[in-house]
């Protein structure tokens, strides 16, 4: 059975005003239900731009980006937020807020203009909290959370949108190993158990290799390689992209990248 195609990006190109080169050039990607995709690449390789253009925040200069077969820029933000939940890299907390309130913000695309929060919305919030192992945090103030708890809460907010696709932009930056693993395990479990699609932008090549079904490797706005982790993450490719000598080993059938020390490259 063919899985539902949620995000389709083909030949996508983007250029910010006054930029010397394209932020994104000829990038293609297809994300289907029940798939875990990872987007890898050095800083400035166009990972976040891919999300922005893929979800219609910026207009591409070339190619197309479609969500459920409709151009991303053709969706209203409200409608799109019912299909795609995003955990952005950064956000502000201008005013103090409790966890449950924060997660309830994820229900906004489902609420009518002047209508109240309904029982279904409250139920969705509680489900999202439970799914993200954050139910016992619900009454805490946001600023009392640790980094790992905070990211789980933000993931719960995206889940409360009841999307078909979850997009996480560098969700584990500044998390320690345990919380990083928890977040990846959680995302993988959501993909497997609920048939969600996930698109995770990350710097962690090795985690991406172990959790993702598909990997997209970007460099300077271009797609260097796309496919199963074992096909994409070859020593030659990764050392070109990251501009550092690498060795590739295998763990549990998945490639693992090991950056080499200078003395190891010149024996």
């Amino acid at each position, binding site marked *: 059975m063919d899985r539902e195609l949620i995000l389709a990006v083909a030949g996508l190109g983007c250029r910010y005003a006054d930029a010397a080169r394209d932020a994104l050039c000829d990038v293609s990607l297809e994300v289907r239900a029940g798939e875990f995709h990872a987007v890898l690449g050095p800083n400035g390789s166009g990972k976040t731009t891919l999300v922005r253009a893929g979800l219609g925040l910026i207009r591409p200069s070339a190619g197309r980006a479609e969500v459920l077969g409709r151009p991303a820029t053709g969706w209203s*933000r409200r409608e799109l937020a019912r299909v795609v*939940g995003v955990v952005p890299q950064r956000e*502000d907390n*201008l005013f103090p*807020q409790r966890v449950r309130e924060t997660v309830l913000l994820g229900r906004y695309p489902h609420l009518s203009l002047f209508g109240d929060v309904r029982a279904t919305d409250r139920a969705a919030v509680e489900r999202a909290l439970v799914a993200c192992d954050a139910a016992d945090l619900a009454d805490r103030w946001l600023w009392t959370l640790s980094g790992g708890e905070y990211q789980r809460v933000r993931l719960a907010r995206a889940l409360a949108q009841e999307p078909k696709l979850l997009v996480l932009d560098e969700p584990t930056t500044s998390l320690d190993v345990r919380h990083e693993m928890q977040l990846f395990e959680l995302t993988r479990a959501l993909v497997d158990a609920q048939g969600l699609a996930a698109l995770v932008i990350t710097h962690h090549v090795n985690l991406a290799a172990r959790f993702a079904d598909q990997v997209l490797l970007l460099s300077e706005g271009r797609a260097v390689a796309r496919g199963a982790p074992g096909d994409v993450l070859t020593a030659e490719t990764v050392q070109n992209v990251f501009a550092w000598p690498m060795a590739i080993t295998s763990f549990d059938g998945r490639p693992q990248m090991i950056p080499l020390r200078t003395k190891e490259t010149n024996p």
Partner: protein
Amino acid sequence: MRYALLGLAVIATLGAAVLLGPANVPLRDLLGSPIFWQLRLPRAVLAFLVGGALGASGVGLQALVRNPLADPFLLGLSGGAGLGAVVAIALALPGPWALPLAAFAGAVGAMALVYRLGLVGGAQLDPRVLLLGGVAVGAFAAAVTTAIVSLAEATELRNAFLWLWGGFSGASWTTVLVIAVYAPLPLVVLAAAARPLDLLALGEEPAQYLGADVRRLKQVVYLAASLLTAAAVAVAGVIGFVGLIVPHVCRLVWGRLHRTLLPTAFLAGGILLVASDTLARTVVAPRELPVGIVTALVGVPLFAVLLRRWTVS
């Protein structure tokens, strides 16, 4: 409970406003008295509506520029209104509506200019540029105002200054009617923006991913809040601190969600201004203080306390 208290406070301040005054009207004669019907009641209702408009537009603008120190007059509106008023006085424009209309035109002119400055790349409203543009336009308008005032006759000058500090001595059922007809539309627009404004506190990009049409939201909220403020200036002059203090107090008491913040700030702004106006016309009776002085005398110490809380935490 806290809502009930707010409702009681509305009734209490309005009651005090119609009972108290330089003329001693016995309670049993009150409902038959023209002082009640033609002076105190319209004045109290107008003060309430203007205070509510300033409170609600303060909430909207603070959320829009994402700066807790924003105030309806920060974006150049008071400067524009003052300039319009002073021009009307200097030109001795005739008629009771010349001054309010000139002030309104000045405020709307300043709003349009700041709006244009705040449009970055011709499309997106950048709150930071909006803020800077507002300060710049306000300063420019103030300079022109001072230039005109320095060339004007002394009595005109005093009128202009008194008018600028705000007051409700000109209140009538006509002005009440003007505001009562005018204000609901921008208020409903702000109310409709309540939930997306909650999202905007996260930042523009997160708000968009959660379903807010941020570009339109910023334009709509800016226009609605500014038009409310312009009308308030036109009928009551520049009354500072209501739009700054009231949103903060309401946020502390009722939380930061705009669905409760907007209505409570409307009511609390109304209460503050009715109470201030009652003070303004009773403490030095039979003369009156400009109500803007009373709100500033109450508002500045409150503001100082808030500022300390912020810098400490």
